[in-house]
């Protein structure tokens, strides 16, 4: 282009082509052109990173070029995510199957947090977990033990596991085992307890503990046997079907749960078990729309885990909350967590509760969004958007926005309403900074006090600070 002769070639080309305009700024300029019949697209522009000055400075360093090929690294990350083949292979127990699990260890949701900083619902779940394990008799004993230093608290994410809400996993708990058949890595998650007063929302009354014991002694063994008869279940296939039936795999799992029941029912009835037992198992799954959540989560976990640790990649591989902090991890930045205080959820409340009752955002379930479903697939589940008083069109727009911060589109998870376009996949940190668009997350709301349970559901955005901090680290590591 430095050829002297061609200095104005493109300008002369413009003079003989149809003018097509992108307008950034005053909308009246776009309206004028539209009136004059010029095809014009108005950009919904926001200052990068919300106008943060420091980040703007870092963007200049990004513009000057990095010493790694981010695009290629991200392509690799996205390819690995798309190639994943999450498969349900069985049910085990935390102690036997989760790598690094110990008897005196409690896994929890989100980035690392110790007892002193744990929010109400997580403390409640820890109390319940200790009582369930027989390590404490009551709340007082449990609290004393939890603060004694004898119990090790570690994030599920440090053990290839994920847990919804408080995400508490103790050694005796049964866990789903999901294997990524393309890469051989596994992910683990407990079985979903249902709604209302449950451990994951911080409830620890006797009936909560009794239910956990029943799940361990009856539910898990029965399901495990049925699963053995059925053989491995392709989770990718199941999730793809659920998305086409109005689920998004995070806050709506009605279709996924039903599909799972269809897969297991014929084998359940063949088991050499009392009819009452089998009936109870079937009723339990039937009565809990979220039963499938604890499968979609580890399916996404073993999917996205493969994209971690790629040098130069700005793909977000973990988003998680513990009710105190929101934390993320980025592929090219190793195991480092970038955290900021967890936000409040904008949503609807169950009868009898109000926003003052809510705990801050909590749970590993945002792994679904990290993998490209959940809030990212909102257009597949327009019913969900009512949680924030939106319309189906808003649901569509949520998904459309997520394409702006992702690098790929899923080839299996597809959205009918978008002409079967693949869900937005592979969250790119750099695009979040550039556009100021934060990931849209669907989530449940826990009561702030331990022991109460779920109080509502809605939508939440992660704190921008996680991403600006990660961006700073990314530039520091990779700038020339």
């Amino acid at each position, binding site marked *: *282009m430095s050829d002297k002769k*061609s*200095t*104005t*070639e*493109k*300008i*002369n080309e*413009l*003079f003989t*082509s149809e*003018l*097509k*305009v*992108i*307008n*950034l*700024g*005053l909308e*009246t*300029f*776009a309206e*004028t*052109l539209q009136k*004059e019949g*010029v*095809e014009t*697209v*108005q*950009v919904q*522009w*926001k*200052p*990068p990173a919300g106008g943060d000055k420091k980040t*703007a400075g870092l963007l*200049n360093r990004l*513009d000057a070029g990095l010493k790694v090929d981010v695009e290629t690294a991200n392509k690799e990350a996205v390819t690995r995510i798309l190639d994943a083949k999450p498969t349900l292979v069985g049910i085990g127990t935390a102690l036997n199957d989760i790598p690094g699990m110990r008897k005196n260890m409690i896994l929890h949701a989100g980035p690392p947090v110790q007892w002193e900083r744990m929010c109400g619902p997580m403390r409640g779940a820890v109390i319940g977990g200790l009582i369930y394990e027989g390590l404490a008799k009551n709340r007082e004993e449990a609290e004393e033990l939890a603060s004694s230093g004898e119990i090790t608290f570690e994030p599920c994410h440090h053990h290839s596991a994920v847990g919804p809400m408080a995400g508490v996993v103790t050694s005796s708990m049964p866990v789903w085992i999901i294997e990524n058949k393309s890469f051989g890595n596994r992910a683990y998650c407990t079985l979903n307890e249902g*709604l*209302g007063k449950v451990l994951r929302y911080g409830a620890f009354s006797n009936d909560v503990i009794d239910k956990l014991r029943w799940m361990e002694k009856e539910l898990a063994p029965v399901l495990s046997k049925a699963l053995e008869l059925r053989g491995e279940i392709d989770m990718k296939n199941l999730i793809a079907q659920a998305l086409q039936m109005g689920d998004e795999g995070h806050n709506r799992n009605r279709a996924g749960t039903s599909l799972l029941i269809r897969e297991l029912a014929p084998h359940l009835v063949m088991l050499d078990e009392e009819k009452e037992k089998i009936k109870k198992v079937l009723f339990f799954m039937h009565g809990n729309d979220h039963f499938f959540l604890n499968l979609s989560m580890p399916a996404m976990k073993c999917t996205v885990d493969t994209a971690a640790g790629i040098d130069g990649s700005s793909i977000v591989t973990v988003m998680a909350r513990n009710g105190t902090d929101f934390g993320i991890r980025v592929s090219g930045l190793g195991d480092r967590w970038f955290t900021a205080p967890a936000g409040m959820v904008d949503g*609807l*409340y*169950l*009868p*009898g509760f*109000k926003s003052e009752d809510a705990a801050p955002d909590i749970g590993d379930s945002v792994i679904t969004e990290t993998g490209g479903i959940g809030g990212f697939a909102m257009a597949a589940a327009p*019913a*969900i958007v*009512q*949680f924030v*008083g939106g*319309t189906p*069109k*808003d649901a*569509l*727009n949520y998904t459309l*926005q997520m394409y*702006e911060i992702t690098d790929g589109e899923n080839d299996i998870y597809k959205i009918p309403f978008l002409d079967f376009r693949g869900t937005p996949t592979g969250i790119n940190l750099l695009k979040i900074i*550039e*556009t*100021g668009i934060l990931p849209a997350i669907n989530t449940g709301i826990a009561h702030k006090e331990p022991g109460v349970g779920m109080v509502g559901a809605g939508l939440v955005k992660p704190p921008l600070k996680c991403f600006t901090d990660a961006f700073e680290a990314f530039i520091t590591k990779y700038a020339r």
Partner: protein
Amino acid sequence: MKKILVQKDSYHDSVFLMQINTEIKKIAGVKEAVVSMGTEMNLDLLKEMGLSDRQVETATANDLIIAVEGETSEAAEHAIRKANELLWKKKGTKKEKEYRPPSLDAALNVIPQANMAIISLPGEFAAREARKALNRGLHVMLFSDNVSLEEEIELKRVAREKGLLMMGPDCGTAIINGKPLCFANVVRRGDIGIVAASGTGLQEVTCLINRFGKGISQAIGTGGRDLKNEKAGGTMMLMGIEALQKDHKTRVIVVISKPPSEKTAERVVEALKKGGKPAVIHFIGLESGSGSKDLLYAENLEETARIAVALAAGNEYRKQALSLSEEALKNIIERETEKMSSGQKYIRGLFTGGTLADEAIFVLEKSTGEVYSNIQTKPKFILENPHISKNHTIIDLGDDVFTVGRPHPMIDPSTRIERIGKEAEDPEVALLLLDVMLGYGSHPDPAGAMVESIVKAKDKAGTRGGYLSVIASITGTEMDFQNLEDQRNKLESAGCVVMPSNFQASVLASRITERIGAK
């Protein structure tokens, strides 16, 4: 007061019910409210809340329960009515927002063949977006100001390397392929191509060319610093000229700018000569240079248009007097001055167009010698306080001092209306000189918005025993959405003298001051 209603076999989605629940709770006098299906969990909850009765106890998951505890029975009943209303409300079509791309790259996915980016973002962000647009191969019109000179030079370097238009920063007007961009008028298409470093100058010249029966092929803006600054060196001006030289639809090239350095001026002249197309140069405020048959210098914006039109028609340009006969002009001067009182001496020019204010200053300086202004280049005549006029004063109301925290006066007429009120209080004022900018971007009725203040000002002068003369010109065309004719009628019915161009308005104003001086 508790009220409970159970509707049998009336299933509703739980999320929908939660929304209704939220609404009901907002009603004054409602202490508790539950609108839910009779699932086991909900029945337990209702019992705990003391909102259960026999009917509720036997409800099933298919039965809808509305249970309310109100401070009074009226409140409770009102809540139940409201719940039913919401439950059975017909849904109208809500106005839903269309999806808009959040970034330039996202917009390129929507419109991959885009060839122009118009950027009017805050200055601190604008340059980066402009650079991105250039890197994506888009021509750029950068409306934003507050972009540093270094950034401008860098952007134009990139643009030249890539052979793209980089109009601006601070470029308010362009017409590309007949389409008006930002602040521009609707004019006929034709064979006159313009490159201008002045937005309102470009508007005035394109409108006058349109009035004189010719049209515009392309009108390229460069931003005010392109020629003024030696380092910018007229990069975009030179590229614009070259592109117009190569453009088959352009027969005549017009250049409008404040006077550049000698070196830059030479380069401009050289570029114009090289292509061989007839050309007009107007360096605002400069006496006409020595031109040739094919390269003429114009003294003012009107003459710029006249020369261009003559060249485009293949005629030789002959210097033209004013469009009014000397006799008609004298009549106006007599009429406008006869009722003035002896204390009325000064002109106050209140302009929304910067270049038009410049032009007025140059015209008036010739006859009066001294004109105060906020945009004066002569330090002696820079107004100490731009908000207070002194003797003969021309104000550019688009200057930064007037636009902090409020829109440009072309968009918001209130700045000038206030100033007209202020000038009306000064018994020494004999004449108001005004411009009226039409076209896209401008106020929908700039003349209409001013009329009341003009009439009031004239009345005030009348009560003092004098007469306030108001002279105006309108930059616009019949095709502009404000309509030239309508605007002229509004001004004339308020007693204004409307002249056919800013130059002629300025000449009339200076003639009137001469007449006053002679009295």
